[in-house]
């Protein structure tokens, strides 16, 4: 029976539990069994058993949830993929996780990730890389690589991750699933171990668009503990659109031309054709400053990270090293606790904020960020949605880019402009290239998630992507 219920989408399983056809405890046990067979290193922690109480009557119907290790969960290890927090069990739970638990999605496990969400391949995890279920010699993408791989491989019905520069969308694309980065402020950041506070957003990683909409609908809302969170301005319903009539889709040449590998471009072109078949209109739209997105992102995010990660000093929690002297405690704790990429970004960020460099680096990056946001505003006066490839390439080989940080940074090329502008974007599977999934990205204005999910649903239906091969492995 277990293999049968785990083949259901989360929304279908929730429907059966709510309809009394399936018990939440059995469903949890079935998923627990699937997850225990994780050979991808997707999980860092797995629940021993179902929690005593599951809010099965809630909208999420008791369907268990894989939670990125970045979210604090009370009494459960929450290390953000870092050795410096190994064994750390927070005394409180992140708002988003709390909301989802109350809505009927108990935590199944904590998923692997790039350390402090810094990475595009999951190879920066302090606990070993995650393998891509489509090809275990390849990366699943990052930083929410564990969540994406778990959902793609059928080790979890659905998952949450976080996206700062593409950390939900890019692994979703590389693993052939759906990933949504919401509007900045739509979901509370309280309890998310911060990487870059002005960019970080929680979001769903799911098997299909319906699951995505169902999960997302329970994540949103103002949280008095997060001053930057906002009430979602409209009611969200599950998507039903079959056509795209009347919708204008803008294709920015800056994010879909140079640097996109041919196989990805091919799937992208097929997707544009589908959009037109469904009655949508495809037009070119310029995002002239988006080419500077990577440069701006790799100053702003490290600058914020350099401050956010200062608290890991060995004084209060997590690892402590050194010989008892204050300076040696700071230096040894951070030297031993942080991985190379985290150290690299702390250095970049510290430098960007330093007296004498601030204006030329951080200040300039902020001005570029404003320009990028203006580009999007202008574009959305002409089009309803913007469509691009999610990742310039399909999943690359483990170890292929680890010695070349710049090549790794370019993996985020198509996904970085949206968080800089604070706008939502989804990645859905568009097709296959070289036997690997290719993601297509739809972005819209702030709080247009309803429109994005509707369009994604219509496209998904038309594309008919089959991800079962990754689950059968």
């Amino acid at each position, binding site marked *: 029976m277990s293999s049968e219920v785990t083949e259901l989408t989360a929304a279908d399983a929730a429907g059966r539990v709510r309809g009394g056809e399936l018990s939440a405890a059995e469903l949890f046990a079935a998923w627990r069994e699937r997850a225990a067979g994780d050979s991808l290193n997707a999980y860092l922690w797995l629940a021993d058993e179902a929690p005593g109480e599951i809010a099965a009557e809630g909208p999420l119907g008791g369907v268990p949830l894989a939670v990125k290790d970045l979210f604090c969960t009370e009494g459960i290890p*929450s290390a953000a993929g870092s050795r410096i927090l190994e064994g750390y069990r927070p*005394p409180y739970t992140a708002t988003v996780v709390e909301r989802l638990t109350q809505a009927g999605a108990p935590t199944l496990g904590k998923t692997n990730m790039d350390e402090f969400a810094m990475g595009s391949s999951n190879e920066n995890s302090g606990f070993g890389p995650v393998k891509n279920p489509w090809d275990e010699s390849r990366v699943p993408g990052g930083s929410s690589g564990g969540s994406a791989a778990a959902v793609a491989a059928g080790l979890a019905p659905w998952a949450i991750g976080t996206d700062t520069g593409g950390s939900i969308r890019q692994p979703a694309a590389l693993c052939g699933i759906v990933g949504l980065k919401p509007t900045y402020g739509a979901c509370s*950041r*309280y309890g998310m171990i911060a990487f870059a506070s002005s960019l970080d957003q929680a979001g769903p990683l799911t098997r299909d668009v319906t699951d995505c909409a169902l999960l997302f609908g329970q994540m949103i809302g103002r949280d008095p503990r997060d*001053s930057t969170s906002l009430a979602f301005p409209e009611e969200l319903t599950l998507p039903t659109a079959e056509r795209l009539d009347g919708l204008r889709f803008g294709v920015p040449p800056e994010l879909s031309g140079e640097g996109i590998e041919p196989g990805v471009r091919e799937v992208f072109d097929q997707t544009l054709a589908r959009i037109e078949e469904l009655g949508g209109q495809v037009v070119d739209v310029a995002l002239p400053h988006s080419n500077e997105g990577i440069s701006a992102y790799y100053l702003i995010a490290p600058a914020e990270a350099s*401050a956010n990660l200062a608290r890991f000093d060995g004084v209060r929690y997590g690892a402590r090293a050194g010989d008892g002297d204050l300076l040696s405690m700071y230096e040894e704790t951070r030297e031993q606790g942080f991985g190379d990429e985290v150290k690299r970004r702390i250095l970049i960020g510290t430098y960007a904020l330093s007296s004498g460099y601030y204006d030329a680096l951080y200040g300039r990056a902020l001005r570029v960020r404003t320009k990028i946001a203006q580009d999007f505003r202008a574009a959305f006066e002409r089009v309803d949605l913007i469509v691009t490839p999610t990742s310039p390439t399909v999943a690359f080989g483990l170890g292929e880019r680890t010695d070349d940080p710049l090549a790794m940074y370019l993996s985020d090329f198509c996904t970085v402009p949206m968080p800089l502008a604070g706008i939502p974007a989804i990645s859905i599977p568009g097709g296959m290239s070289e036997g690997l999934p290719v993601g297509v990205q739809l972005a819209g204005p702030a709080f247009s998630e309803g429109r994005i999910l509707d369009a994604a649903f219509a496209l998904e239906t038309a594309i008919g992507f089959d991800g079962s091969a990754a689950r059968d492995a």
Partner: protein
Amino acid sequence: MPEAVAERAYEPVIGLEIHVQLSTRTKMFCGCALSFGEEPNTRTCPVCLGLPGTLPVVNAEAVHYGLMIGMALGCEPAPRSIFHRKNYFYPDLPKGYQVSQYDVPLARDGRLGDIRIHRVHLEEDAAKLVHAGASGRIHSAEASVVDFNRGGTPLVEIVTEPDVRSAAQAAKWLRLLRVTLRSLGVSDVNMDEGSLRCDANVSLRPAGQTTLGTKAELKNMNSFRFLERGIDAELARQEAILREGGSVVQETLHYDTRTGAISSLRSKEEAHDYRYFPEPDLVPVAPTEEMLERARSALPELPAERAERLERDFGLALDAATLLAFRTELGDFFETTVQAGGENADARAIANWVTGELTANLGDADPGESKVEPAALARLVAMVADGAVAGSAAKEVLSALVAEGGDPERIVEKEGLGRADAGELSGIVERAMSEQADAVQKVREGNDKAIGAIMGVVMRETKGRADGGEVQRLIRERL
């Protein structure tokens, strides 16, 4: 040494930076109650401990208090002020940065008394480090522990323009600031306990020069006395350097209140690069018209204004008006007493009694809480003016009022403190003159001062009920 340098006069230029702990119910960015000497680490939560994933939320009451302070100091509140992160590593700073306002403070450009205010901004206090070991300082400590109870307490920082010209002026002005803040009810403003802290930026320049000299920042002056001594010591140190043809180095200095010694904490080269940047976890503070109005209407009459009014409306001397205005409870008792005295009340006499004899009896206690009714004091002062009771007897009446309360007429009657009349006095005067024959002789020979000895006897005999002027007249009649 050139003659000119040796003789040159130097002008001190001093600016003050004051930290005020606000007496809000909860901390600046979380819901923890403020701590008043509880067990260490019992007033903490994930937010003020800086645990991973936590976020700050601005305390609305702290903004309200900050706006009140800004307005009381005549500042313009900013339509949108923003918080920054001030980055540095120290164990008392759990996030590795302090959330503080930087280039857009809550309020700016005001004035209190003779000193202009540069800015008023909000920030959070650090936790408290306790060092085990003989020195009590971190460098030689055997172990150090952190008490996070104080961490996150709301602070307002007030920065003056460099308008202060002497240590005495600094201390005097800081007293005005303290009494002003106290009247707002926004802080305990206690220097011993650290709820009011003052640093001074001290420099010297040749008299007449308008550009500023190099300043040194003097820290840790935890009383008015030490503020004055510390600044004087630093001015002397700088003057000695300049007179020897040297130049002052920009640095941060520690004033040792025990030895009076000044030592360098860090030089300009060692100064931290705080890498300030806008705090992305907070939105700007944009006070609504409603918030501004609430702050405005919460402002009481400020001490400086009250001193002026007391001087103007009651004809009080500046000293008395200032004392009454700065000790709010004395001022309140004074005004109630004048009112109780009705149309003919002598406000200046009442002020003398309140600031003199009453304060001598009560010390720091609030007369409003004492047994002395304002109406009783008003009648006593009137009785003295009418001659019904002599001055020294009236002091006894007041002591009785302080001890027992009640009615001055009844006390006078019961204790027999009414003024001795001429009939009663003449016998006493005659006895005193015969007892003090030597003194009588001296007065007759022109030593007028000797009359005091005779009067002393009369006063002793009448227990102070006699009017001095009348006694003199009676003695002279009999010489």
